[in-house]
């Protein structure tokens, strides 16, 4: 083959041609250019096809389904499935829980991850400490839920310990009353998710040039001032990633909730992802489930786009 990916002209076709290709014109016309586009298209096609088939087509179908009722004949119902967000208390509670999850999964892993990374970065037992924190991240969400279920049920380990140390008054049904049940599940999730934040922050900490800290130290900056004005600004790229990941994880939280409470009791702990499953597969309302899926997708995309656009612009700038 005369044309390969290694002898393409520079992007845009303007300016100096690549070294060793001075005999070629910067912009080619006719068969070679078309051939090159076809080759590029050929390489792109499998990925585009797979994404279209497995992601975009189901999404379009889901949007389409959300405009049809859940009766036997499934007539077109305009926005009826979407208006349930205003009228169904279970969905209102689901949105509240989703917001709680987002706040919790962003704040807790970020704060705890940063604190643990800073504290274990230079200590003697840092490797062991890090391992202990990171280990839960290797567990599946369902396994974590089973362990926490053992602890949080009314006759579970937490209440037994409280009773053993004469703190019976604090013993309660941790998974039974809202918003406490959602809060304890967020804590369980943070226990697992903090590990990855720690890893990322450690990578960030190790990439900070020691000279900057030495310079700060020579200028008389204390530990807090060094952290606030030297370390933290340099951890900004890592922080963006940690918060971005936590944001999306919070919005799509499902497995832990499903195993611990199945969204109950009385749909009190459902998030939008759980409501979507519940409406579609348990209440047998695929149209309502599709509407929740669309709303959740829009929220995830909007939140991710708004956050990343702002943060990455600042970074890029």
């Amino acid at each position, binding site marked *: 083959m005369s044309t390969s990916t290694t002898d393409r002209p520079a992007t845009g076709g303007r300016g100096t041609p690549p070294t060793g290709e001075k005999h070629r014109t910067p912009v080619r016309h006719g068969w070679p250019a078309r051939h090159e586009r076809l080759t590029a298209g050929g390489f792109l096609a499998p990925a585009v096809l797979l994404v279209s088939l497995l992601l975009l087509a189901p999404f379009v179908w889901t949007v389409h389904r959300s405009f049809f009722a859940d009766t036997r004949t499934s007539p077109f119902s305009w926005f009826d499935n979407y208006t349930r967000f205003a009228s169904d208390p279970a969905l209102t509670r689901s949105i509240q829980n989703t917001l709680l999850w987002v706040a919790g999964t962003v704040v807790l892993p970020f704060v705890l991850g940063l604190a643990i990374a800073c504290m274990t970065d230079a200590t003697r037992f840092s490797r062991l400490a890090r391992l202990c924190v990171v280990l839960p991240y290797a567990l599946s969400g369902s396994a974590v839920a089973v362990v926490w279920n053992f602890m949080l*049920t*009314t*006759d579970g380990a937490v209440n037994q310990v409280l009773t053993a140390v004469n703190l019976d008054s604090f013993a309660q*049904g941790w998974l039974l009353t809202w918003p406490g049940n959602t809060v304890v599940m967020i804590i369980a999730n943070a226990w697992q998710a903090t590990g990855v934040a720690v890893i990322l922050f450690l990578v960030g900490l190790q990439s900070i040039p020691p000279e900057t800290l030495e310079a700060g130290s020579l200028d008389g900056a204390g530990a807090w001032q060094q952290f606030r004005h030297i370390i933290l600004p340099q951890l900004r790229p890592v922080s963006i990633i940690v918060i971005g990941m936590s944001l999306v994880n919070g919005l799509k939280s499902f497995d832990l909730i499903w195993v611990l409470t*199945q969204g*109950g009791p009385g749909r009190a702990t459902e998030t939008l992802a759980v409501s979507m499953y519940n409406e579609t597969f348990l*209440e047998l309302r695929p149209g309502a489930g599709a509407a929740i899926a669309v709303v959740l997708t829009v929220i995830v995309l909007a939140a991710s786009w708004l956050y990343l656009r702002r943060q990455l612009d600042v970074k890029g700038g």
Partner: protein
Amino acid sequence: MSASGRTRSASAPLARRRFLAGAAAGAAVLTAGGCARGDSTSAQPGNTSISNDNATWDDGYRAAGRELEKITGYALRPLSNPSVTSYQQVVQMTLQTSKATDLVKWASGYQLKRLARAGGLTDLSDVWSTYQAKGWVRGTGRDAVSYRGKAYGIPLYESYYVLFYSKPVFRKLKLSAPRDWGELLHCAEVLKRNKITPFLASQTGGWPAIEWFQELVTKVDPHFYRKLVAGKASYTDDPARRAMDIWHDFMRRGWMTSPDFDQARGPGALKAGTVGMFLHGTWQAQGMTAAGMKPGVDYGAFILPTVRSTTPKSVIAESGVFTVPARAASHDAALANVGAWLAPPVQRVWSDFLQDSSANPTVRSNNPVVAGLQRDVTRERRLPLIRYWEASPPSLIQGNTNDLGGFMAGQTSPATTLRRMQERAQDEWAAWRRDEA
């Protein structure tokens, strides 16, 4: 061998192409394999496949299948999917395809009506008529498996909702199985005084939340229950309110376990003496044996007494069914097997395996506790009532079960719970009737 630069540059693309060609071939093989018809549901000589959502029953199906084979020439080949939700999705989807199994285990009542309404099931009315003529099935059960006058299911077993109790604990506290409401309350008071939680009640997993509701409503007024589940009475009517008040009172007195108590731990709790009575289906007898308890020695069972002595006696009966997909790979073999399923030799083996009550009234359970309950149901002429889970349209039941779970967790009062249930009932019954029209 060291290669020159030229050799390297010539061999690298070749290796890459080989790699790409290999990867493409591998992907093609995988894709072809994925598209190929699996053989799990295809016809196998001498066998009928059965979709099943309880893997612990596989041995029982095989044992009963060996008896069936003597009669029909076809054994049973169970294909289990233990996740109920996933099982329901798979069955509903495969019914419309050529990959349906020969027999499908399903629930009776409105769960079956919904499946029959979607089409794809075989009319088993003739099989029912034959069974009725032989006296191998109770005629009262036909409504629960019928849709628009045609029967689509053959009962798989017949379980009753009863209260299991620990005989050693009752003996120690000088208690006996209560015969009326007053004695039941006395048992609960004595158990509570001795730091034993009188009743197991749970909403873990969702559906158990219906158990005390259905039991108390039927023991307040069984005729009202029939009207309620048929959409002809209101959840805010007096009998429902009375039942919920009793339940609420039991909870306030600390007579119920915490709602997040897992039912799977019920037999163990009964054995350990931490719980006095466990409301559940008689199929739980198998679990009692697994926990090392002997029927009649370590545990007994009784049907909850009526709240008033004048109230007609009733029992909640639950029966799974066999259905035959119209597109079953071995349709004739499947029909032959459902036609012989209730034959006494097959039911003898099946009932012994389950340690539960057979759907064939001529077959007595070998478990003395269950056999005693069978005698009680016949002697007292108890009104058989369909379980709440199958008694109304599925969307209504699912929503109301969630509400009952919320009530158990103390989120809503009895009145608010019933009001919500009634609001949903109005909507869902209207939707069901609209669909039927």
